[in-house]
């Protein structure tokens, strides 16, 4: 009996709670008089209506019974209910109409009631939050799995954009205006209008962003620093300065605070220009070192270890390449890659006689820079645009490409046009060698150039030198869009070999190397 009583008390208290909350929420108040069950029933009814979910209504129907049950049982036990207002009504209420049920039935009913209460409790939680119940449920679901799709790939998802906007506001970072018209295929990618000044809204005093980072961001946005190696290096230098200027505030732990400080910087850099894979890897490494490596260290030691980090990231490729370049070679290169430049210069210094054909693509025309540097090094060069690549490939013996990243499925992500070059090379049976350091290896897998890419400024396509621009008023025509891709993905069957500092590996061995690296970082 006692436990039944306690059960009932528990149940009652739950009811009370539920009614209280419903009382707060309900707009039309029902009179307290009348059947005790009614307010409770009304409350419950309101509760049901509140949730307004079809799935909950069956529960609602069964809920009527327990009230009756309690009403019935209470007077039978003659118990005095505790506390709050409405319960005495329950005690006095007797429903002589309903017959007395057997114990088993009661038990079953009680169990059912418990289930419902539990469900109600969940409902309560859901009714407590306004409107976005689905989100919380999915949020709770989402908390369990890691976030697979990064924010910058969800430009078409309004929710994700709102969240990002909020986050940026919190971090006090200016947000760029999105472009009005985008190519349909690429609506999931961000594309921003070119603005006069990114840093207009940053004030000097309240800024949470270190000036070195601000400068870096502007340099990225304007294209002053470009090329994955250069960007990564510049970023590391800037972070080095950040850490050097960093002083741990009182009562805070170094690693957590530093990490928290770096987060807004990363968002800011992301806003200026999308992070490259190399930068992403470097940041991961940095964060890892901050959180695990700097537990007990002071700031000075942190910066020292950080310098060590910088050196660890190797930037010299394998030296086997000079066996790959022989006399009388005709080498085709595309756009500007610092690594390929270094390889060619080293080969030239070793006295190997070869010629280079530099292929260039609009609108960035980075090949001109490559051409200048090669000529300065004294190498014989020719220069062509990418549409003449079939003409060039007829006399070519090798193709050297630089890479932005190497993906886990063996694809090479590089400047747009490299895949075309590799394709034509394959058809002329010319071997393609990709030069890439291992820190640019990425666990992602990608099959085409659409899913993850960067969209450049479409107005770059308009300017065609001294000729009259045909597309100068392209915005006036709704059906016209300009597409300026920055990267593209070369399938592994076009690439003969990848040259890294570990040696020559085929494209498909990327996951092996990544695994090795993970093991290394786990050990350290």
């Amino acid at each position, binding site marked *: 009996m006692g436990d039944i009583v306690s059960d009932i008390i528990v149940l009652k208290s739950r009811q009370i709670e539920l009614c209280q909350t419903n009382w707060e929420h309900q707009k039309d108040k029902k009179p307290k008089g009348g059947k005790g069950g009614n307010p409770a029933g009304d409350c419950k009814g309101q509760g049901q209506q509140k949730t307004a979910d079809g799935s909950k209504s069956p529960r609602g129907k069964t809920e009527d019974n327990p009230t009756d049950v309690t009403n019935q049982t209470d007077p039978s036990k003659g118990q005095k209910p505790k506390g709050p207002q409405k319960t005495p009504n329950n005690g006095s209420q007797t429903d002589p109409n309903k017959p007395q049920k057997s114990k088993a039935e009661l038990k079953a009913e009680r169990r059912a009631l418990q289930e419902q209460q539990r469900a109600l409790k969940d409902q309560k939680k859901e009714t407590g939050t306004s409107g976005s119940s689905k989100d919380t449920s999915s949020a709770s679901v989402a908390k369990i799995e890691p976030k697979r799709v990064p924010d910058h790939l969800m430009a078409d998802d309004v929710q994700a954009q709102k969240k990002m906007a909020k986050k940026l506001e919190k971090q006090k970072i200016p947000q760029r205006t999105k472009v009005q018209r985008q*190519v*349909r*295929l690429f609506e999931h990618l961000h594309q921003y209008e070119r603005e006069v000044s990114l840093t207009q809204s940053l004030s000097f005093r309240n800024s949470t962003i270190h000036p070195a980072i601000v400068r870096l961001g502007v340099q990225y946005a304007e294209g002053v620093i470009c090329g994955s190696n250069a960007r990564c290096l510049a970023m590391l230098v800037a972070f080095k300065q950040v850490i050097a200027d960093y002083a741990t505030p009182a009562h805070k732990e170094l690693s957590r605070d530093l990490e928290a400080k770096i987060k807004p910087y990363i968002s800011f850099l992301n806003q200026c220009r999308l992070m490259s894979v190399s930068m992403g890897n470097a940041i991961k490494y940095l964060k890892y070192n901050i959180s695990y490596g700097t537990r007990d260290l002071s700031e000075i030691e942190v910066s020292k270890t950080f310098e060590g980090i910088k050196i660890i990231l190797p930037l010299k490729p394998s030296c086997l390449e000079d066996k790959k370049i022989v006399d009388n070679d005709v080498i085709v290169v595309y756009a500007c890659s610092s690594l390929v430049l270094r390889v060619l210069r080293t080969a030239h210094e070793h006295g190997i006689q070869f010629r280079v054909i530099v292929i260039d*693509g*609009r*609108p960035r025309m980075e090949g*001109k820079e490559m*051409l*200048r540097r090669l*000529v300065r090094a004294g190498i*014989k*060069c*020719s*220069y*062509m*645009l*990418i*549409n*003449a*690549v*079939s*003409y*060039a490939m*007829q006399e070519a013996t090798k193709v050297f490409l630089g890479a932005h990243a190497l993906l886990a499925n063996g694809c090479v992500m590089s*400047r*747009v*046009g490299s*895949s*075309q070059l590799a*394709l*034509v090379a394959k*058809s002329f049976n010319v071997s393609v060698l990709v030069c890439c350091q291992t820190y640019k290896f990425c666990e992602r897998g990608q099959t*085409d*150039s*659409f899913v993850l890419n960067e969209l450049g400024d479409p107005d770059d*396509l308009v300017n*065609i*030198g*001294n*000729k009259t*621009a*045909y*597309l100068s008023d*392209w915005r006036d*025509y709704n*059906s*016209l*869009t*300009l*597409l*300026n*891709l920055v990267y*593209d*993905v070369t399938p592994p069957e076009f690439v003969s070999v990848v040259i890294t500092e570990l040696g020559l590996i085929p494209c498909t061995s990327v996951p092996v190397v990544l695994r090795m690296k993970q093991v290394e970082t786990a050990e350290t």
Partner: protein
Amino acid sequence: MDKVQVSIQNTIPAGQGDISKWTTARVISQTKWTTARGYYRLNGQHLVHEILFHFDSALKGSEEADPQESLHKLLSAEGQKEDYGQSVPNLKATVIEAVNELKTELENSADNIAGQALEHIHSNEVILTAGKSKTVEAFLKKAAKKRKFQVMVVECAPFYHGQELAMSLAKSGIETTVINDAAVFAIMSRVNKVIIGTHTVMANGGLKAINGSHAIALAAKHYSVPLIVCAAMFKLSPQFLCSYDQDAFNKFVSPQDVLNFSEGEILSKVQVHNPVFDYVPPELVTLFVSNIGGNAPSYVYRLLSELYHPDDHDIQ
């Protein structure tokens, strides 16, 4: 005729049709001879072939009315030496008539090809095109009247005809996107068809098309996207390509557009090339759409015999 020569030499390839029309106009207006001995040296060589063919057909008009159709006849025909010094009355009239026919054919070919557009384009397609070809422009615009589709235009540096085409298509309300030449492979996976025009169709079915077409054709082959070439019959040429470095296959214009002359001292140390044409081998082409219908590239050689006399295949 030197004025003609000079001005043809000086124009960068714009509108093959324009040049052909204009030269025929001149030819008609300036014929002055009755014997077949003079012939003009024009740069549009296949046009000359056509005119020559009409000479010969007019000359032989009385004897053999039908051009040689069967392959066997072609093989067994001996070199017929005609006496070109013979004065044939009405030669001029006949030739002028034939040339007039040629002229009408030139003018109507674009419309003819455009009429077949709906057979090849279905709705909600993504079509890739390159450069500016009047034929392709007419083709796409005709299809756009009835069907809705998207067009991606490759801008084709350094002449940028693609941008002109894109503007023109956008003005007629077709959904157009301009991409640069480097992005062709990246985009190709989403393209349903590639439709290009060409400067010449070689005798083996290969193309002498605008620069960059070879890369486009290779990408299309990789993704199994059909390559459709819209070319009128007068673009057929009886020449074969033996090697890519063949004399007079490609035309190289001033490298000014590739690397500006005012770039300075680097110019003396660097070779800059600016080829105008590209060779596309016939196995990369899926279909030729011409004014007499659609053909496979393997059939082109037969069409040649209807147009040109075998003796005239080599003009020098």
